[in-house]
């Protein structure tokens, strides 16, 4: 098996100059004894991936600083008690641990502006935080950066029924927005498993993808306007609600996907599609990845305009969900599963279309079995199987997720390769699932006890392979702290240099979310 990998790489060598032959040594390397993550000295970070980072030359927090913050926010919106601050210092996966001593909870853009102006003057580093649901360690401090939480900026400002444009503050929770819109007959253009906790400001700052991207496009298209605050406190108001506005540079794009390093997003204007009257979901069992690809091509052809999601998961993922969360498997045991969703305006038309597609796939042998549902309760139950998978992996003890974009043909290849490389380690599960329709694979690795060495085994293999295929090392999760060392795998040196230039222009003192995205 390993020789097959070596042969494949040798062939691809001619297409890519920068292959390190040490790649193969990494693949064959044995593990050292595991070390537990220990709390380290103030100038070192215990966050996985951050151990070699030194704290930047920022000021230390003083009581004068605290008094200033208390003067612009009320006392209860300035958290300094360690037990209050603690949850803001750890990310959802518990792989990133910060050492912040203070959390600020502004309610308005003016408060954010005042805070940032002061922090910039005083050279205090800050870490903007929304729902803290990110999986690349970008939402928590690395050292003692001041956490600026948008949780209290949760007002929905306006909704225009005619255009479907909603304007809201950055701290609005995705699910809250979805519920508000559904009362008006509209829905959010994005949906993800973390919807009960993630905030729209964070979604915009990470250019979140999710399960509806296939149909409604990315946030880059759906965000019509943004209001953000620069490092020096200056408010940049590009909160347009117009679908078309070609007046100069599209500044809002500076803040979409820049993970809080170029500005803090305070308001968002989003264009929202009308809610679909007819939603159907199909959960399918397939015998090989080849059939998965065939089915997804057919789905796109035959379901075309009504297809709204095309997801896949392997058997190991379903196994985690059924064993850890006790959810019901709708069909039998198959090597691969797919979840298709259609959203349209005519119930009978859509059901007939989906039915016909599924029956013909069954007859032709592309799918082995499947269920179809149009009742909201069953649709919810089937989506849970896919959306709660991260929760299921977390229940194993610890869980890392990798998120890559590669050409569809090679979508699943890395999973068996990685499983083989991880055999004999403390890893319990190595599985693949993802937004098949977007070419975006989530590689899940979970086990009982975290081994800090595992990323060193997984990452060189994974990212080299991704780079060979000219893929992205982070399809939708962003860079955060976990992938800073690998940015060059997917972006050219000149691109990275331009990013540095823009960062220098917008945040010369580097106080906004330092240590994230860039590695140095």
């Amino acid at each position, binding site marked *: 098996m390993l020789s097959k990998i070596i042969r494949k790489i040798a062939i691809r060598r001619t297409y890519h100059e920068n292959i390190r032959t040490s790649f193969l040594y990494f693949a064959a390397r044995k593990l050292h004894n595991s070390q537990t993550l220990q709390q380290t000295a103030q100038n070192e970070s215990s966050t996985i991936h951050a151990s070699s980072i030194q704290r930047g030359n920022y000021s230390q927090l003083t009581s004068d600083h605290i008094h200033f913050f208390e003067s612009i926010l009320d006392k209860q919106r300035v958290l300094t008690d360690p037990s209050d601050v603690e949850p803001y210092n750890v990310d959802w996966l518990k792989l990133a641990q910060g050492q912040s001593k203070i959390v600020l909870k502004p309610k308005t853009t003016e408060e954010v502006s005042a805070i940032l102006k002061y922090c910039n003057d005083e050279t205090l580093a800050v870490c903007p935080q929304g729902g803290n649901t990110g999986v690349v360690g970008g939402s928590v401090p690395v050292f003692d950066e001041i956490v600026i939480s948008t949780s209290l900026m949760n007002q929905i400002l306006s909704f225009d029924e005619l255009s479907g444009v909603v304007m809201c503050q950055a701290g609005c929770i995705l699910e809250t927005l979805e519920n508000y819109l559904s009362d008006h007959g509209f829905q959010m253009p994005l949906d993800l498993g973390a919807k009960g906790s993630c905030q729209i400001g964070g979604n915009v700052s990470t250019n979140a993808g999710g399960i509806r991207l296939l149909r409604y496009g990315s946030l880059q298209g759906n965000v019509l306007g943004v209001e953000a605050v620069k490092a020096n406190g200056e408010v940049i108001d590009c909160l347009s609600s117009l679908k078309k506005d070609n007046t100069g540079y599209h500044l809002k794009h500076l803040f979409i996907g820049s993970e809080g390093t170029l500005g803090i997003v305070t308001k968002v204007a989003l264009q929202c599609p009308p809610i679909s*009257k007819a939603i159907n979901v199909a959960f399918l069992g397939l015998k090989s990845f080849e059939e998965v690809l065939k089915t997804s091509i057919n789905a796109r052809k035959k379901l075309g305009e009504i297809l709204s999601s095309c997801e896949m998961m392997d058997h190991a993922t379903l196994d985690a969900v059924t064993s850890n969360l006790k959810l019901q498997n709708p069909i039998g045991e198959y090597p691969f599963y797919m979840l298709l969703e259609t959203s349209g305006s005519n119930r009978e038309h859509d059901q007939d279309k989906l039915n016909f597609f599924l029956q013909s796939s069954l007859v032709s042998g592309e799918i082995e079995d499947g269920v179809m*549902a149009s009742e*909201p309760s069953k649709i919810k139950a089937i989506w849970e199987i896919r959306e709660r998978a991260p929760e299921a992996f977390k229940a194993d003890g610890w869980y890392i997720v990798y998120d890559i974009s590669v050409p569809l043909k090679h979508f699943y290849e890395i999973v068996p390769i990685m499983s083989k490389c991880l055999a004999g380690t403390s890893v319990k599960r190595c599985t693949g699932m993802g937004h098949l329709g977007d070419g975006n694979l989530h590689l899940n690795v979970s086990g009982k006890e975290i081994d800090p060495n595992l990323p060193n085994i997984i990452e060189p293999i994974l990212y080299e392979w991704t780079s060979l295929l000219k893929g992205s090392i982070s399809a939708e999760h962003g860079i955060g702290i976990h992938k800073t060392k690998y940015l060059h795998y997917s972006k050219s040196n000149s691109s990275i240099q331009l990013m540095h230039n823009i960062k220098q222009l917008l945040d010369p003192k580097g106080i906004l979310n330092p240590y994230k995205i860039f590695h140095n």
Partner: protein
Amino acid sequence: MARVLVGVKRVIDYAVKIRVKPDKTGVVTDGVKHSMNPFDEIAVEEAVRMKEKKIASEIIAVSCGPQQAQETLRTALAMGVDRGIHVEVSGKDYETLQPIHVSKILAKLAQDEKADLVIVGKQAIDDDSNQTAQMTAAVLDWPQGTFASKIEKGDGNLTIVREIDGGLETVKVKLPAVVSADLRLNEPRYATLPNIMKAKKKPIKKVTPKDLGVDTAARIEVVSVEDPPVRQAGSVLADVDELIGKLKEGGHV
């Protein structure tokens, strides 16, 4: 081997947000997604498992309601039921259809079809009546085992474990009998595509309550249907003294 009659009801899907009609005569059902009553799904599943274990020979599903009730019957057929009977009740009659009527219908069908066991969900999630199984047993003068969480077949009898407030009660009933299914009896299967295809060929017979000699004239009158009162917002208090102050203010102490 036993012939089993399963009652299934078409109700508003439990994941749908219920809206009261502005004229307060009922809830909005037009264009709202319906599905099989979850407890009835459990009843169907139990009947199908009995057939798979060869304890039952034939399963017949019955649903009372308008034309759309046939969709519910098709779901039951796709889960493994052999044939369906649609008792057509629509319009005003359907709005006032009560367990008292349904139980007489099920009783007549149980006699006509020579059923050995009638199994229904313990209650419907729209009216929460929890009466149909009990009334059907009374009309037939058959023994009943309600809130069943486990059913075992013996020789001409059933041993049923019932979930009651005090814990679990085990009863033994002679067949023929009426059973109502509770939540923990089983986990209903999904209707898979090949089975949905097969179900299209299974027969659904249509009858009316009149054919069965049952009068569906209204026995109740719906006076009004209203939303529950809106929940008042709570408030965070600073300390115990303030709490006592507020309680005194509100006349609670």
